[in-house]
């Protein structure tokens, strides 16, 4: 089996601070591989090392068969990248941005014109080709960057948080493009994200990253098996002495969430539910709300780190603050 990307004990420091702490992983040819991790995990740093923009302090990384430190030019020829932050020329039009990129990568004339048309049509921006990018919405800019990264037909595509800050429809749209690229061009795609749904929807395999380390790796199903059980969330009327964890032989793990709910790990939620109500009655607790679900990647992250990966939206945060305020009363 040959690999598109092979990384061994990769370390990257910024001054005294070690952003990537000796990670190893392999990405197979033609798969979508996702780095899932919270802010500051070291995802972008890893992408920048793999795309030859940063030099690692230790370890090795091979991309498309070439060492990123010794043969950066070979690597650059074979990769395409969409950076986390916008990198288009805002003063220029979509077409001009594509044209400049194509020229830099050695295309010209009719071939280049045709490629630009094909790619801009692929991301549905052809009708806006003569509009300066500064008038583009966030989603349009992202699509343009995707089109640009594909123009020179890279073997391996790096997408650093491709849908960050975009609305749900636009995100779904971009996911479509990514799937189409994989299927039509059998491209290898390395993706970073802090959205669990994105990793789950798109990736063949996922590496969960936290504080510069890979803490788990595998398919979404593999990862969920790490939790090994279902999850129940219970909201209870708060007793005098405060919310406490529940204890019973059918409860494998228990945690109090920041929003005051109690999170229980059980082997089988449907069987545990009646037992839970019994237990509550016996202890004189009033249950207000129960939800349960199969483990998500968020649960996996929680299971592994004790924290949530979730990118808390403003709404959720406000809701939690209200909850806390209520609880204090």
């Amino acid at each position, binding site marked *: 089996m040959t690999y598109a990307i092979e990384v061994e004990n990769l370390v990257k420091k910024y001054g005294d601070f070690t952003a990537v702490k000796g990670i190893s992983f392999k990405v197979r040819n033609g798969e979508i591989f996702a780095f899932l991790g919270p802010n500051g995990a070291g995802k972008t740093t890893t992408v920048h090392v793999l795309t030859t*923009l940063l030099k690692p302090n230790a370890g090795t990384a091979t991309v498309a068969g070439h060492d990123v430190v010794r043969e950066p030019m070979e690597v*650059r020829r074979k990769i395409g990248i969409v950076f986390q932050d916008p*990198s*288009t*020329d805002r*003063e*220029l039009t979509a077409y001009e941005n594509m044209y*400049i990129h194509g*020229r*830099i990568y050695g295309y010209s004339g009719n071939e280049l014109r045709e490629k630009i048309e094909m790619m801009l049509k692929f991301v549905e921006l052809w009708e806006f080709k003569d509009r300066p990018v500064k008038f583009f919405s966030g989603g349009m800019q992202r699509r343009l960057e995707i089109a640009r990264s594909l123009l020179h037909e890279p073997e391996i595509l790096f997408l650093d948080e491709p849908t960050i800050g975009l609305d749900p429809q636009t995100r779904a749209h971009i996911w479509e493009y990514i799937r189409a690229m994989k299927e039509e061009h059998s491209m290898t795609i390395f993706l970073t994200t802090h959205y669990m749904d994105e990793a789950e929807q798109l990736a063949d395999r996922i590496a969960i990253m936290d504080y510069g380390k890979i803490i788990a790796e595998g398919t979404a199903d593999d990862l969920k098996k790490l939790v090994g059980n279902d999850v129940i969330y219970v909201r209870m009327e708060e007793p005098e002495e405060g919310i406490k964890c529940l204890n019973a032989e059918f409860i494998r793990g228990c945690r109090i969430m920041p929003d005051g709910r109690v999170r229980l790990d059980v082997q089988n939620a449907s069987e545990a539910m009646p037992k839970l109500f019994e237990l509550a009655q016996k202890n004189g607790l009033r249950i207000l709300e129960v939800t349960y679900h199969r483990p998500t990647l968020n649960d996996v992250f929680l299971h592994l780190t004790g924290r949530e990966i979730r990118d808390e939206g403003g709404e959720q945060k406000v809701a939690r603050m209200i909850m806390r305020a209520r609880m204090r009363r």
Partner: protein
Amino acid sequence: MRIFSTMIYREMKRFMRSRARVLGSLINPIIWLVLFGKGWAGAFNFPGASMIFGGVDYMTYLVPGIVAMTVFNMSFIQGITIIWDKQFGFIKEILVAPASRGEAILGRITGGAIMVMIQGVIILALSFLIASGLKLSGVLPALALSFLVGLAVAGMGVAIAMRMSSMEGFQMIMTMIMLPMTFLSGAFYPVKTMPEWMQWLAKVNPLTYAVDGSRYYLAGVAPTFSLTTDWLVLAGLAALFMGIAVIEFRRATID
């Protein structure tokens, strides 16, 4: 040479898209030429006045200085706008491309210098309307000197900008070096009649040599230094600053 010409193409496109800004930037030199120039031209209208200015009228004397000053200002701005490229991420697009970084940055600087030349041509054309003693034959060599100034100063701008992370320090640098350099260049009055300490400063000011050379070509005023000195100093500085810019850009990291 692909990325070199592509970067020039990019500068051209950006230049054309910012026509308003380009025209706006011509207002300043026009004010100097017309209000400052015509004002003093009236005062320097007594017999023998042209003796002070190497045998030509003040307007004709002033034009090469204003052109050099304009080219100098514009080139510096051209160079330093690479900060935008850094901030808006276009630099990363270049750094990750399978192309020579040195060539890319030389293309950027050259493109900038060419656009500055176009502004120089506009100012020169206007000058011919208001100054009587200018020589048409001097246009090409004067533009060539301006081009060297453009390369040197845009290179310097890039070198400075690569070390700065924001546009904030920029205004300060501008006023700190632009005004004194212009006054010390002999653009408005001869270097020879300056106090000795000013003459000394004028001699280390590269702009002096641009003014000196183009004043010879455009107005026929005998050069203060030799023409060879003018050309060599400017070519040397262009090579030096472009070299520094290349070295800095090659080393550039994205953080």
